């Protein structure tokens, strides 16, 4: 049979394809319906948090930070309750990471504050002496792309049926109407910060990346579903 296959490239290619596709069919497909169910009461990310998630992706935090607490005592002691599948239901993409040069962040919102993040992102060594993390001062200047984050929320709602409210609708008009809500949320974060340039920018309707990022980091943890219980 193998000699025959080697002389018939078409059937050879079909044979190879079936052999390699087999594992995916059995291992990946069956899980889809089950694992995408959210834990009870989980709320979707707000638009500001989504913009923060984009900053997290852009500066590629997953190169050094995981968002997956494994079910070991050493990990739950350090980071809190181990991660549940349903907590990730609204994470597109998943941001578990594969390397912990720095600590896990899946519940960082449970034990760090806006103030802590502000100091840490500006100068990590001032908060954690000996840290090898670089400063991310450009996040205090760069303006977050709120419109793209809103576009993502619209997509999540309309394509993937993520339970956003009726005020999330496609089109420029809907976005203009929604924008004040995002700015109000940003102002709350900025109120807890001390950097005057950031406060001024937010007051002028421009949200620096750091504000969105802190909103996102604060949302990581059990606050997104425990508050509703």
């Amino acid at each position: 049979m193998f000699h025959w296959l080697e002389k018939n490239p078409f059937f050879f290619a079909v044979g190879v394809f079936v052999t390699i596709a087999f594992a995916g069919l059995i291992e990946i497909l069956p899980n889809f319906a089950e694992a995408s169910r959210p834990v009870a009461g989980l709320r979707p990310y707000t638009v500001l948090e989504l913009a923060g998630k984009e900053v997290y992706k852009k500066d590629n935090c997953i190169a050094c930070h995981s968002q997956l607490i494994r079910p070991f005592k050493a990990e739950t002691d350090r980071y809190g309750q181990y991660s549940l599948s349903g907590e990730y239901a609204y994470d597109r993409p998943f941001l578990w990471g594969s390397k912990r040069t720095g600590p896990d962040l899946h519940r960082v919102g449970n034990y760090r504050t806006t103030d802590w993040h502000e100091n840490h992102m500006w100068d990590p060594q001032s908060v954690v002496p000996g840290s090898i993390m670089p400063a991310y001062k450009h996040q205090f200047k760069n303006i977050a792309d709120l419109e793209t984050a809103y576009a993502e929320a619209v997509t999540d709602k309309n394509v993937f049926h993520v339970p956003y409210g009726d005020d999330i609708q496609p089109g420029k008009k809907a976005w203009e109407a929604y924008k004040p809500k995002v700015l109000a949320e940003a102002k709350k974060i900025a109120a807890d910060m001390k950097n005057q340039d950031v406060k001024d920018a937010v007051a002028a309707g421009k949200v620096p990346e750091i504000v969105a990022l802190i909103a996102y980091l604060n949302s990581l943890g059990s606050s997104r579903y425990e508050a509703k219980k």
Partner: protein
Amino acid sequence: MQSNAALEYDYSVAKLFTYTTILFGFLGMTIGTLIASQMAFPELNYLLGEYGTFSRLRPLHTNIVIYGFTLSGIWATFYYSAQRVLKVSMAESKFLMFMGKFHFWLYFFGALAAVVSLLLGITQSKEYAQLEWPFDIVIVLIWVSWGIGMFGLIGIRREKALYISMWYYIACFLGIAMLYLFNNMAVPTYFTSGGLGSIMHSVSMYSGTNDALVQWWFGHNAVAFGFTVPIVAMIYYFLPKESGQAVYSYKLSLLSFWGLMFIYLWAGSHHLLWSTVPDWMQTMGSIFSVVLILPSWGSAINMLLTMKGEWNQLTENPLIKFMVLASTFYMLSTLEGPIQAIKSVNAIAHFTDWIPGHVHDGVLGWVVFMIMAALYHMAPRMFKREIYSKKMMEAQFWLQTTAVVLYFTSMWIAGITQGMMWRAVDEYGNLMYSFIDTVEVLHPYYAIRALAGVLYLTGFLMFAFNMIKTMTSSRQLTEEPQFRSPMA
């Protein structure tokens, strides 16, 4: 395989890809050395402002070495060896020649644009699949043009039976096509939101645990079909060609090919042990990873036994040395991987530096060594000149071998130290170390790894220099060398 004197093979496309292999290899390894140094000396993060942090540069390093260096190497060797094993010249078909050149130029400009987009931070944040959807479309076009070239050549072949190398190139083509398509399924938000925001942005079709499953089914097997399968294709062609020895066993090559095809895909979930992925999938990933030793070692042993009775060549020909060491590192790496995939070992190893250590003994020792050896073998035949310097090749071999050993030993120690410190508890059951303790203790190992990077990069520069000299100013050859590559 006999040489066919009547047929004049056309190497114009193979040459183009040879140049980009050298270019992207230099670029990717330079960035790699820089980011390795940043972990030891964090001040190096501020060389390029926002664009120079470790986090921004790391995907640039991985993408350039995988999709720049390795893919170029795969295609350079493909456009060289496929003609020869199929006994047909690219020059015989204007269409295939055009497709080959189209393939190259689309790839080259696509790759440059991709580099810029990663520097700007435009990313899906899925490892090794960072590029956003417009790039994915370009990549599909590049892939399809390779497919047309490959199956076109097969269509007009004179040698009816496909040689082993061709099996692996076909598998590389099909495997990556399937994995890449499914993992990059995403919805561009611009079109679903009535024209809001950035046109580059997209949302993954899968969420959370499902996304993780698809991503690591892709991630692990991109390694399989990018770093293993086509590299095995190379060694099956170039080792017998360089040594003049026949492949040791046809049956063993059959067993390891079909075994590898069937088993590799199951192993992806070993990247997700102890995660929220269902337990049975984790166990499957673990078991199949261990079974994977069989076909991997099958190929490697087949290659080593091909040298049976001719081991003296190892001392006389540095090219054989590169290939034999590549096989050996392949064996080391494919034993180390399954060990890390055992659940209890993984509990310590996962998230630590042992993982990059494992990746690099595979890629530096196996992938890069094999690609360099293949290009060294091709150079005298493509450029009709002898290899510029044997001495330099010897020196390069030892320099880079030292570098690989330094790299993986330092990362073994770093990884296991880290893993043990994270879980260490005192007599009352409290954690013994704060996280920063586990970072500070690694400094010497990061410094050693950075040194390993500098050594390896130096070796690669010697390779590049040797190749460029071979292309331009080495002694010309009057006829094509039969087996052993001539070198000065």
